[in-house]
């Protein structure tokens, strides 16, 4: 979905304003929303499904909501959509210690057992495909159709475009790709600057010459 969340390249939001000595949370409801999303998130569904839950917010509400308001709205939507309240889990909830061990262990997104031979090598020129899927994707509009260069291989990672929609993890090679700022933004951009972004193999095609 080409959504409002795909913000890269817009210049209409004014200057960035930092809050001096900002606290971790601004109110108690923010604390609870954060903790609910972190501790009950996996019970709702995969991270990619949960991200897409935010992307599906009506654009006017997305733009005027604070970060934790979005997290709240997403959780309300997905709890209803999954019907999870009607099918409570059979095993007991994790204890604080059990969950703390998950906080420190993390949930890696690489899948070494599904390791696929990468089609591209560091230094290869690639073009980001002009894909406009109706569902979740992590290919932002501002790189579509642009030519870059493979900077790094990250290994084999879960593919969000399928995983967000219950179509499996489809692990595939993940690359870091460098794009010249002038390639993305035209001749007025600095010829010295560049943008690095992580893109899955299905987002890329070889590009021999220009």
């Amino acid at each position, binding site marked *: 979905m080409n959504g409002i969340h795909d913000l890269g390249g817009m210049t209409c939001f004014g200057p960035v304003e930092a809050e001096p000595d900002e606290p971790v949370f601004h109110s108690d409801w923010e604390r609870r929303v954060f903790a609910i999303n972190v501790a009950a998130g996996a019970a709702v569904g995969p991270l990619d499904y949960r991200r897409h839950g935010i992307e599906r917010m009506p654009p006017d509400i997305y733009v005027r909501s604070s970060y934790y*308001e979005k997290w709240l709205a997403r959780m309300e939507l997905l709890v209803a959509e999954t019907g999870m309240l009607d099918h409570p889990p059979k095993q007991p909830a994790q204890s604080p210690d059990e969950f703390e061990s998950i906080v420190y262990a993390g949930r890696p997104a690489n899948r070494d057992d599904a390791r696929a031979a990468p089609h591209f090598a560091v230094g290869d020129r690639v073009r980001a495909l002009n894909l406009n899927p109706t569902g979740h994707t992590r290919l932002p509009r501002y790189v579509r159709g642009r030519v870059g260069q493979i900077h790094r291989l990250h290994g084999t990672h879960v593919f969000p475009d399928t995983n967000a929609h219950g179509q499996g993890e489809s692990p595939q090679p993940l690359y870091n790709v460098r794009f010249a700022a002038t390639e993305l933004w035209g001749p007025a951009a600095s010829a010295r600057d560049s943008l690095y972004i992580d893109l899955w193999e299905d987002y890329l095609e070889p590009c021999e010459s220009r």
Partner: protein
Amino acid sequence: MSTHDAPPNPYLAPRRTADESRELEARVAKLERALTDRGIVTRETLDRVVDLYEHDIGPMNGARVVAHAWCDPEFRARLLDDATAAIAELGYSGLQGEHMVAVENTSDVHNVVVCTLCSCYPWPVLGLPPTWYKSPAYRSRVVIDPRGVLADFGLTIPDDVEIRVWDSSAEIRYLVLPEPPANADSMDEEALAALVTRDAMIGVAKVAAG
């Protein structure tokens, strides 16, 4: 690129009314009750999550990583080669830091990190992101106008320094290794860590001399 047309940031100005805050609190309480009543998560686990991210997991962790890299060239080399493993040596790991990459600022290169599609951020080393990092203003503009955004933070990058913007589109999380302050040689690791700010590890500030 100037931003003469940009309106003032509308995301900081309109504070919530008391009624709106009460409505948010009620929604959050209802969601928490629904999930805890059904045994999906416990209040004690939610309390623990808040406690962890409010007290144990924050930018002081990243600051120790940075200071250690400044003081130990071999650690610095390991950090730049495999940041996840190097950071784990100091005891930091977990959710939103499963796959770390460190990018080094030098006199020739300045790195800055963003997530244009949502607000991905390396929690184990930086804690939770500040509001400005999650704002449309930052997410949209830093990829197209990094020098202008850095200027919003009072940071002017000379034209002959290359800017690299890192858009965290996958599960890779980026930590900027800032340049050490001018008087770093006269300080020990703990004193250096106290100088390293969150903003310097995102790439919107430099580390000031102590």
